[in-house]
C-alpha cells in the first residue's frame, strides 16, 4: 500500500510538468507582446512591454522562454489581470476559498444523494421507485446546469423569496468588509463559526441552498446510473446468494455485502466528476452572483485577459491532478485488489 502511494506521488511532478508544457505550448500562439502580459506585475510595468520582452527572453527559443516562464510561475508571479486590476495570484488567493467552499458543499450532498438513489433503484429493480429514479436521472441529465439554476432562481428566489443569492446576507458581508467579523479562511460558513456567530453560519448555509440543489439534480444522475448497474451485477453474484441463504437480513445483504463492492466504479466517476464540477461552479457563480473564480475568469476570457485565463488554466490543471491522485489512493484503499503495475 505504502509503495503504491509513494509511486503514485512520484508521478505527480511529471504530470504537472506535462500540463505546464501544454499550457505554455498553447501560449506560443500569442504574440510576444501578449505573452509579456503574463509576466507583468503592475500597471506601470505594462507601459514598458519591450523591456519585459527582453527581460524574460520572450524573443528567444521555445525552451529558453519556457525556462524563464516556469521560474516566474514557481515564484508565484502569474502576471497582472486587467479584469481585477491586481496580480493574478492575489485575485486567485482572494477568490479560491469562495469557490472551494461552494465546491465542497456541492460535492458531498450530490455524492450521497446519487448513492442513495442508485441503491434504491437497484434493490427495487423495475418497481415504481426504480422507474421514478430512472426518469429523474434522464431529466437531470438533460438539464444543463445554467438552465436549472435560472429556473431555481426565478421560482425559489424570485417567487418564493426563500434562500438567497450572493454568499450571505448583506449585513454580514458588510461586517466582514469592515472587520467587525474577522476573516480567517475566506469561507463564510467556517469563518462564521470561528467568530462564534452561529447566525452568520446559518446565513451562509441559506445562500448555499440553490447552488447545492442545482448541482445535486444535475450531477447525481450519473452516480445513480453507475451505482445502479454495478449494484445489479453484484446482487446477481454467488456470494450475495450465499449471504441470503445464510439467513442474513435483507438490509445487511444489500448494504454490507452488495453496496460495498458495487461502490468501486462510483469512485472512478467521482474522479471524473471533479472536472465537471469546476464547470458547474463557474456557471453557478455567475448566475447566483457569488464572487468566486468563475465570476472573475469568464469575463476575463471574454475581455482577452490572457494572464487571468492562463492562471486559471494552471490552477485547474494542478487541482485536477491532485484530485485524481486522491481518487487513485482512495481507490487502492477501498479495493485491495488494485495495485500499481
Amino acid at each position, binding site marked *: 500500500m505504502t509503495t503504491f502511494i509513494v509511486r503514485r506521488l512520484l508521478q505527480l511532478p511529471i504530470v504537472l510538468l506535462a500540463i505546464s508544457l501544454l499550457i505554455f505550448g498553447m501560449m506560443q500562439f500569442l504574440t510576444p507582446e501578449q505573452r509579456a502580459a503574463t509576466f507583468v506585475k503592475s500597471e506601470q510595468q505594462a507601459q514598458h512591454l519591450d523591456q519585459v520582452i527582453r527581460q524574460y527572453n520572450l524573443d528567444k527559443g521555445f525552451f529558453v522562454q519556457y525556462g524563464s516562464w516556469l521560474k516566474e510561475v514557481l515564484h508565484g508571479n502569474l502576471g497582472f489581470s486587467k479584469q481585477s486590476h491586481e496580480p493574478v495570484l492575489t485575485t486567485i488567493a482572494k477568490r479560491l476559498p469562495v469557490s472551494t467552499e461552494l465546491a465542497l458543499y456541492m460535492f458531498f450532498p450530490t455524492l450521497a444523494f446519487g448513492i442513495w438513489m442508485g441503491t434504491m433503484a437497484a434493490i427495487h429493480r423495475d418497481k415504481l421507485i426504480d422507474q421514478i429514479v430512472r426518469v429523474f436521472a434522464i431529466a437531470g441529465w438533460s438539464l444543463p446546469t*445554467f438552465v436549472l439554476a435560472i429556473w431555481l432562481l426565478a421560482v425559489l428566489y424570485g*417567487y418564493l423569496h426563500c434562500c438567497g443569492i450572493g454568499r450571505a446576507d448583506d449585513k454580514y458581508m458588510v461586517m466582514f468588509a469592515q472587520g467587525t467579523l474577522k476573516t480567517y479562511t475566506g469561507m463564510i460558513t467556517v469563518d462564521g463559526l470561528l467568530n462564534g456567530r452561529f447566525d452568520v453560519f446559518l446565513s451562509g448555509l441559506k445562500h448555499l441552498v440553490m447552488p447545492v440543489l442545482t448541482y445535486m439534480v444535475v450531477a447525481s444522475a450519473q452516480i445513480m446510473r453507475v451505482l445502479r448497474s454495478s449494484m445489479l451485477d453484484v446482487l446477481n453474484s454467488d456470494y450475495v446468494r450465499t449471504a441470503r441463504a445464510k439467513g442474513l437480513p435483507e438490509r445487511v445483504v444489500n448494504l454490507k455485502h452488495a453496496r460495498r463492492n458495487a461502490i468501486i466504479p462510483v469512485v472512478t466517476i467521482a474522479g471524473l466528476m471533479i472536472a465537471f464540477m469546476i464547470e458547474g461552479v463557474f456557471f453557478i457563480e455567475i448566475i447566483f452572483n457569488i464572487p468566486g473564480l468563475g465570476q472573475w475568469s469568464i469575463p476575463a476570457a471574454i475581455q482577452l485577459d490572457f494572464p487571468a485565463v492562463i492562471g486559471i488554466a494552471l490552477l485547474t490543471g494542478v487541482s485536477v491532478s491532485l484530485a485524481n491522485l486522491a481518487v487513485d489512493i482512495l481507490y487502492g484503499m477501498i479495493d485491495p485488489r488494485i495495485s500499481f503495475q
Partner: protein
Amino acid sequence: MNPQDMKPKRDPWYRSKTFKRFRRNPLAIVGSLLLLGFVVVALLAPAITAPQLANTPSARPCLRDLGVKRSEAVEALRNPLNAVFWKAVLAPPRSCYNIPRASFSPLPKPPSKKHPMGLSGDSYDILYGLTWGTRTAFYVGFLVVGISLAIGIVIGGLSGFLGGATDNLIMRVTDVMLSFPGLVFVMIVSVIFGSGLTTVMLALALIRWAGYARFFRGDILRTKAQDFVDAARALGASPLRVFLKHVLPNAIGTLLILASMDVGAIVLTASGLSFLGLGAPVGYADWGQMISFARGYILGTAQGTPFDFWYVWIYPTLMLVLFGLAWNLLGDAVRDALDPKS
C-alpha cells in the same frame, strides 16, 4: 460454389433484434418524435418566421439576399412551389441568421400578434431566435460530433493497431484530456483565437475526441481477440489487411451509433458557452444567446412581480431542455438495445 453464397444471410437492419428492442421501448418513440419535431422546425424556420421577416425593418438584409420583395415575402416563403422557399430552406444566406430587432428598446415585450413569443431583452424576436437557433443547434451538434469522431477514429485506431508504447502514450494523453474541464479549455482557446462559434466548435471537438479514441481502442482490442481475426491471420493476410478488412468494420459500428447520440450533449454545452458570452456573436440565432438576452429579466421588475417577463426565459430554456431530452431518451434506448444486460 461461389464463396459469397456460403455466408449466412443477414437480416436487414430493420428486422434485427437490436432494432426490435429499440422499437418496443416507449421512451425511444417519444424521443424520436420530439427529435422529428425539431427537424421540422429547423427546416421550416423561414416559413414559420416569414411574417417577422416581412414586418421587421432590421430583417431587410435577409430578404435582400434571398431576392424577395417585402410585400411578397410571406407569400413566397410559405409556398413550396416558389424558388425562394427552397432557397430559404436549403441554403439561407448568413444574414438570415441575424435575429431581427423590433426596436431599440432594451425592455422585453410580451407575446403579441406580430411577435408570437414576445420580444427578449434589446427587442430581439424570440420566435425567430428559437426557430433559426434550431438550425444552429443541429449544425453545431453534427459538426462537432463529425470532427471529433474523425480525430477519435484516427487516433484510437492508431492506438489499437500499433499497441505498445504508442498506445500507452496516446492513452495517457486522453487521460489528461478527459480530466481537464472543457469550459477552461474553451476559455484558453477563445482567449488565443478570439471567441466565436467557430472557436467554440473547434475547442469542443479538440476535447471530445479523447473519449471516442478510448472507446474505439477498446472495441478494436475486443474485436482483435475474436476467432475470425485469428482465422484471417492464419490464412496469411497481412496485419494491415487484417486490420482494415476485418477488425475496423466490425469495431466501428457501435462507436458511430453511440457518438451520434452525443449531439444533444454537445448542443447543451455549446449553448452554455454562448450564454456566458463565449460563443455566437451578439444577435446570431442561437439558444444560448437567447437565454443570455433574458439574463437581466429573470427576476421580473423591481416592483416585485417575479414572473413579469416569463416569456424571455421560459421559451428558450424549455426549447434547450426538450432538445437535450429528445437525444437522451433516444441515446438511452439505443444503449439499452445494443446491450440488453444494462
